[in-house]
C-alpha cells in the first residue's frame, strides 16, 4: 500500500469534520472521492498531505508511519525533518493552482527539484521540459503564470507536482476554479496519467470523469465514507440511500 489512513478523526472547534475514516490506496490505483460540499473530502486530502493536523488515527506511506495514535488517544507526528521526507512520497494539485507567480513556468518546475531534492539544473530542466511537452506547454516554458489560462496553469501545477517524482498524486477539486470550457484539458491530462497507472486520489465534482477514470469511487457525506467500490456499482447501483440522493442531483 502506498497510503494507509486509519481511524482518522478531525474537528474544527466543536464541528467534527472527519469521523473515524479509514482508507488505503494501492499502487496504480485511481481513487475518486465524491460527495456534497462540507462532507470532509477536501479535509481528508489536507490531512493526508499534512496541511491539517489530525486529532486521532494513523497515517502511513509506503508502510512507514508518519502519524500514529498513542495509548492516550493522541495523534503523534514524526519530527518535522522526517515529515519532510514523507512529503517526497506525494504531490498535491490545488483547486487554486498556487503556482509561484514570480517564477517562470520552467522555474516553477525546477526550483523544488533543485533546492529540495538537490538535482542539478540540467537534470531538473530535462525532466521539466519533458513534462511540459507532455502537458502540451513546452512553448510556454519562459512565460509567467499570469500569462496563462486557468487550464494551462493547472496543467503546469500538475507538472510541478510530477517533477518531484511522487509515488502518489492528490488532486483537490482540480477543475472547480476553471471555466467549464477549460475543465476538459485538465481532465484529459489526469486521464492520461491514469492510463500510465499513476497512483492518484482525486476529489472531484466531475461525475462522468470519476466514473470513466477511477478504479474505485469513494462517496463521503458528513465526515464518513458512506459507500465505496467499483465506479459502475457506485454510480449505477448505489446501495445506500444517501448515495442515491446525492447522485440524483447530478442526473437532473
Amino acid at each position: 500500500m502506498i497510503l494507509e489512513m486509519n481511524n482518522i478523526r478531525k474537528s474544527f472547534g466543536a464541528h467534527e469534520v472527519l469521523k473515524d475514516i479509514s482508507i488505503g490506496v494501492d499502487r496504480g490505483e485511481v481513487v475518486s472521492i465524491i460527495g456534497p460540499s462540507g462532507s470532509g473530502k477536501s479535509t481528508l486530502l489536507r490531512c493526508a498531505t499534512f496541511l491539517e493536523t489530525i486529532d486521532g488515527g494513523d497515517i502511513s506511506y509506503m508502510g512507514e508511519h508518519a502519524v500514529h495514535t498513542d495509548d492516550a488517544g493522541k495523534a503523534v507526528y514524526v519530527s518535522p525533518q522526517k515529515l519532510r521526507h514523507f512529503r517526497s512520497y506525494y504531490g498535491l494539485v490545488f483547486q487554486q493552482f498556487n503556482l509561484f507567480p514570480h517564477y517562470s513556468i520552467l522555474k516553477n518546475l525546477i526550483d523544488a527539484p533543485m533546492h529540495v531534492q538537490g538535482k542539478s539544473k540540467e537534470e531538473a530542466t530535462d525532466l521539466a521540459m519533458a513534462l511540459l511537452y507532455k502537458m502540451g506547454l513546452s512553448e510556454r516554458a519562459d512565460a509567467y503564470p499570469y500569462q496563462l489560462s486557468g487550464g494551462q496553469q493547472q496543467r503546469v501545477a500538475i507538472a510541478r507536482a510530477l517533477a518531484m517524482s511522487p509515488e502518489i498524486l492528490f488532486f483537490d477539486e482540480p477543475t472547480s476554479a476553471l471555466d467549464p470550457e477549460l475543465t476538459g484539458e485538465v481532465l484529459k491530462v489526469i486521464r492520461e496519467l491514469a492510463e500510465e497507472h499513476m497512483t492518484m486520489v482525486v476529489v472531484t465534482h466531475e461525475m462522468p470523469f470519476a466514473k470513466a477514470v477511477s478504479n474505485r469511487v469513494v462517496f463521503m457525506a458528513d465526515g464518513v465514507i458512506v459507500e465505496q467500490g467499483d465506479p459502475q456499482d457506485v454510480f449505477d447501483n448505489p446501495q445506500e440511500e444517501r448515495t442515491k440522493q446525492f447522485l440524483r442531483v447530478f442526473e437532473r
Partner: protein
Amino acid sequence: MTLSTMLSTMAIGMLRTFGVFSLTLIGSLPLGMVVALLKKSRFAVVRGFISAYISIIRGTPLMLQLLVWYFGPFYLFGMNIGGWRFPAVILGFVLNYAAYFAEIYRGGIESMPVGQYEAAEVLGYTHTQTFMRIILPQVIKRIMPSITNEVITLVKDTSLAFTLAYQEVFSLAKQISASQTSFMPFVIAGVFYFVANYAVEFAMSRIEKALDYYK
C-alpha cells in the same frame, strides 16, 4: 556672502544629509525585517518587547527620540557624550525607521495568500527556503509603494538632525540665513530636498518597473 559661497558652504551640509539618509536606510531596511520576524516569534516575551518598541517609536516624536539618544547617556549614566553626536543621530533614525519598515514588512507578509505557503510546504521546502525563495520576493514587490512613501519622508526627516546641532543642510540654512539676513539659504535647502525626492521617486519607479515582469 555670494550665492556661490553660500552654495559651497551648504554643499557640505548636503553631503551630511545624504550621509544620514543612506546610513539610515542601510541600517533600518534590514533591521526592520528582523523586527517584523521577531514580532511573529513564538516567545511571548519577544513579541511583547517588539510590540512595546514599535508603540513607543511610533507614539513619540522623532525629535524627542533624537534628544533622548544623544543626551540620555549623560543624564542617565553620567557618560561623556563628546563625539557621540553623529552616532546618536544615526541610532535615532535607524531605530525609528526600522519600526516603520517592520510594520510595512509585516503587512506585506500577512497579505500573502496562504496557498503560497501550502504549495511550498507540500513541495518540501523548509521554512527558511519558503520565506527566502517564495514569500519574500513577492512581498518586496507588494510593499514597494509603501517603502517609497517612507523613503521620501526620510529625506525630509533628516532635517530633524538639526535638533542635535548636527550641521546638515537644514541647520546650515538656518544659520546662514540668520547671519546673512537672507532668505536664499531656505530656497536652496528647499530645492535640494525637492530634487533629492525627485531622484528618489525616479529610482523607486524604476525598481517598481523592474519588478513588473509578473503579476
